[in-house]
């Protein structure tokens, strides 16, 4: 069974040592997903697997046989910008841009988690079925994505605005 990357089937690497991150970047030439720390500490390599955010640097590609992976290149089918990408531009949610693909994939995973009421480490009533995405909630839920330029205020603003727009839509 192959793996699906942005809707397209690909054959898995023969060597099980190849991480999902290296498979994306080196084999498939999808350079949007970034290698930051390569040890699960920075979040730059975040991609979506069946809609859930994971760290592709800590994943062996062979573990994801039959799964559907979405990278920053695959957020829209037409090559245009996703509303969250547009919001990052408008809110200056980046300087060097290296962490941005991971930030954006992570935030999209976050939206799905919030929509189904998943709690976070700062959720007051952990048994509540609905989550209010306050500033504290947003920061906690994005804490696995670091930005060394310090664009966090813009990142938080872009994510909050896109989330609010999605709820209003």
């Amino acid at each position: 069974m192959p793996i699906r990357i942005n809707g397209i089937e690909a054959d898995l690497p023969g060597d099980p040592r190849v991480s999902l991150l290296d498979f994306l970047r080196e084999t498939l030439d999808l350079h949007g997903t970034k290698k930051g720390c390569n040890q699960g500490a920075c979040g730059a390599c975040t991609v979506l697997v069946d809609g859930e955010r994971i760290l592709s640097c800590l994943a062996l590609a062979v573990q994801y046989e039959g799964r559907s992976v979405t990278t920053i290149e695959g957020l829209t089918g037409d090559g245009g910008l996703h509303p969250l990408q547009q919001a990052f531009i408008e809110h200056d949610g980046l300087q060097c841009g290296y962490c941005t693909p991971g930030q954006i994939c992570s935030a999209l995973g976050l939206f799905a988690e919030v929509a189904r009421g998943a709690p976070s480490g700062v959720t007051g009533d952990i048994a509540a079925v609905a989550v209010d995405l306050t500033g504290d909630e947003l920061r906690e839920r994005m804490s696995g994505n670091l930005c060394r330029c310090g664009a966090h205020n813009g990142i938080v603003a872009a994510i909050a605005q896109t989330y609010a727009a999605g709820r209003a839509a």
Partner: protein
Amino acid sequence: MTPFSYVRARDTTEAIQLGAADRAKYLGGGTNLVDLMRETVERPLSLVDVTGLSSLIQESDDGGLWIGAAAKNAAVAEHLAVRRRYPVLAKAILAGASAQIRNMATVGGNILQRTRCTYFYDEDGSRCNKRAPGEGCDALDGFNRIHAILGASPACVATHPSDMAVALAALDATVHLQGPGGARTVRLTDFYTLPGDRPDIETVLQPGELIAAIALPPPSVAARATYRKVRDRASYAFALISVAAVLEVENGAVKDVRLALGGVAAKPWRAHKAESLLQGGPATERAFVAAAEAELADAAPLHHNGFKIELAKRTIAAVLGALAGEVA
């Protein structure tokens, strides 16, 4: 990474057959094992992927909870039965790692994760008795701010990094094992071993044995529980000290208390001394402080981690005080 073969086990029987191979390791989400393989601290010849085995989370007939070892950390923390009946477990998991890692990591893998002692990780440059038995321990006289204050030995002062396991220790969880010799059940607090002169041995797991599930006994309806983690930053860092506490107070007296500490030892540290002092006594701040003092009486600081003793005492007292206030 050194070369290895990879195979996905279809069921427990097949996993155990494959796990009997020379230097085979079971693979969960890989969030720790893949990292350690990249650092060549772990060098398995084969990986047996057990993420396809049971990830069922289900309330059991006795009113407890059954958690398949392949359940993702995120799935456990999100499960309504966990959030409503075992909030200390959900809170510990949510404090444990980023959302991305919680989406990958399994319950079995979380329990079996290795220490984050930097000398253990530094395969090229440091001596470590856990990694290479008999080699020596560079943490003992090194930078040991994050290291153990309880249950350590001259051979090893590493701590266990899991938050989830600290909550499981306080909840009297049992670990269900499957292996070449059949199935057996071990209490989580008996599952881990202290380093002694063999810090490379961390659990009672026999060769080829696999964690199949975790079981929790029914929670006390009247008890309050929480998990507090003290770390260098507000999120996404390992614990310096953590406390999982379950407290039931009746008419101002402690009817039941279960207390476990993280960040202090090579295993989740069940605070039996503090518990026995508190049991049946007054639920007062003074009693909480005295219990914390008693639990830490044997604590042995290293050069850089003496602060942990006072931090542990104060965190225990604060957590118990907050829980008692809730039920007052």
